[in-house]
């Protein structure tokens, strides 16, 4: 079976859940080989990659890769496409994943399909486009298919193998080092699950009224072990940090359950949550367009409804 190259999505030693989803998807297409850029691939991360079926982990850990965004990764990926001739390359639909994939596609003369939600063994890709209203099946017909997979579309299924690690050296060209990362600003994310990966997301919008109001949203989220999301109105107002924004220019989420509180449902917000499996809405305006997406909705004041809901959940657990 040919190799399928998977670009690991990680933050230091912390492997993102989507990496396990990518490896799971790769198993249907060939033998998963993981490319790990930068530091953080220690014994436990290696074992965790093996738990999902990664046979080999190629590590490029150098200052060239860590200190410059995107371009070095694309160079390494393109050179591996040349030497390994994998059946396909799978990367996450994140900013880095898409851009590394895009640049490698140009370098290697390969077609690229973004935002896959499923990949069939014959490399036919399923996408949900136009806010989930249309399902498209397509296929790369030139070079090695490069496919970016949306987080939370494929479930990660363990299949234990012993992954071997191989450190590979790489000469990164000057042209790939034109941009330097001078500082990584990490905003504390706390104990809640990662927004893009969470199975349940509880979001708040302008209706939450202020930073303090997010207390009731967080309490509900914690009762469901959920991630907290926010509309742009809430992040712009500074009530909640920017990286929790859901929508066109925020995160795209596709959880099993999305609870929208005090959010009107602007098209840019929907673009980031429309493919959620079950949507619950709390909004005091019965005309709010977000109700169009609701499986279950309550017209009412979120400050009455949400705490009551949290209380009920806590009691029933």
């Amino acid at each position, binding site marked *: 079976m040919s190799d399928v190259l998977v670009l690991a999505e990680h*933050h230091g030693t912390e492997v993102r859940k989507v990496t396990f989803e990518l490896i799971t998807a790769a198993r249907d297409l060939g033998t998963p080989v993981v490319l790990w850029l930068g530091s953080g691939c220690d014994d436990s991360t290696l074992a965790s990659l093996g738990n999902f079926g990664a046979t080999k982990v190629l590590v490029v850990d150098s200052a060239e890769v860590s200190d410059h965004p995107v371009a070095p990764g694309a160079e390494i990926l393109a050179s591996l496409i040349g030497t390994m001739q994998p059946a396909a390359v799978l990367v996450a639909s994140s900013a880095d994943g898409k851009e590394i994939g895009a640049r490698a596609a140009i370098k290697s003369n390969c077609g*690229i399909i973004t935002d896959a939600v499923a990949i069939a063994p014959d490399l036919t890709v399923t996408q949900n486009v136009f806010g989930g*209203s249309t399902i498209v099946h397509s296929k790369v017909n030139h070079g090695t298919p490069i496919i970016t997979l949306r987080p939370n579309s494929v479930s990660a299924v363990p299949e234990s193998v012993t992954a071997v690690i191989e450190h590979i050296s790489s000469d990164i060209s000057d042209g790939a080092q034109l941009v330097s*990362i001078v500082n990584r600003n990490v905003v504390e994310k706390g104990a809640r699950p990662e927004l893009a990966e969470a199975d349940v997301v509880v979001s708040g919008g302008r209706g939450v009224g202020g930073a303090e109001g997010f207390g009731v949203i967080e309490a509900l989220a914690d009762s469901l072990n959920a991630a907290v999301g926010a509309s742009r109105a809430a992040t712009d107002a500074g009530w909640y940090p920017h*990286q929790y924004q859901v929508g066109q220019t925020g995160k795209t989420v596709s959880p099993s359950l999305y609870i929208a509180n005090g959010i009107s449902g602007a098209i840019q917000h929907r673009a980031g949550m429309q493919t959620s499996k079950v949507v*619950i809405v709390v909004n005091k305006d019965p005309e709010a367009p977000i109700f169009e997406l609701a499986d279950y909705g309550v017209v009412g004041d979120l400050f009455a409804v949400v705490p009551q*809901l949290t209380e009920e959940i806590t009691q029933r657990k």
Partner: protein
Amino acid sequence: MKIAVCVKQVPDTWAEKKLKADTSTLDRESADGVLNELDEYAVELALQLVEANSGEVVIVTMGPERAAETLRKAISMGADAGIHVVDAGLGGSDAIATSAVLAKALEGRDFDLIVFGSESTDARMSVIPAMVSERLGLAQVTFAQKVEVEGDTLTAERVTDYGFDTLTATLPVVVSVVEKINEPRYPSFKGIMAAKKKPVETLSVADLNLDAAAVGAGAAWSEVADFAARPPKAAGVVVTDEGAGGTSIADYLTTSKFI
């Protein structure tokens, strides 16, 4: 400072978007074409930088005849000139071909900065800025929520999953912006009048010395096998809170096994 801003005409944000049965490409005729929202933020950034440092802003677009309106709309915000790549052979171009066309149109014009919106509302791929910078061999600073230029050094904040990265590069740089970067201005009446007289260069595929076989639907490196409208979601239940709204949601969550 010489700045190019690449913009795209997209179907009106609220319009229902559909693929055409015969070509599996977006039906662009059935909806009003508007300037891609995020591109307005790109134009605004370029205008602010030129206002602070002097220079000129050139709007660049690839698209059918009627994309000329969108080009003028972007110019009316205060830009100096436009480049419109228009050619019947370009219809159905994928991201790979589009990036080749834009790179050719931008090449050799000594732009210090090439600015994009980070995503179009129709295709939503977010790959064109990276592809163009790859083709031109230029520094790539994308998903920027903040951009500053001092002399020939650019400093920016790239939005990441965990916060943001502060990046630096020396001009020329390809930039893409997210909507946090600024508040785009509305075109003034004066701007709208002036835009009518601003020079717009029209270029064909042949003018760009591009192989006609390398662009358009026939050159796409991926093909659509089939597509279907997703069955509309069954209408949900909406109740009015009369004191037990929260409990009723909890009941729904219990029935659907979330608790």
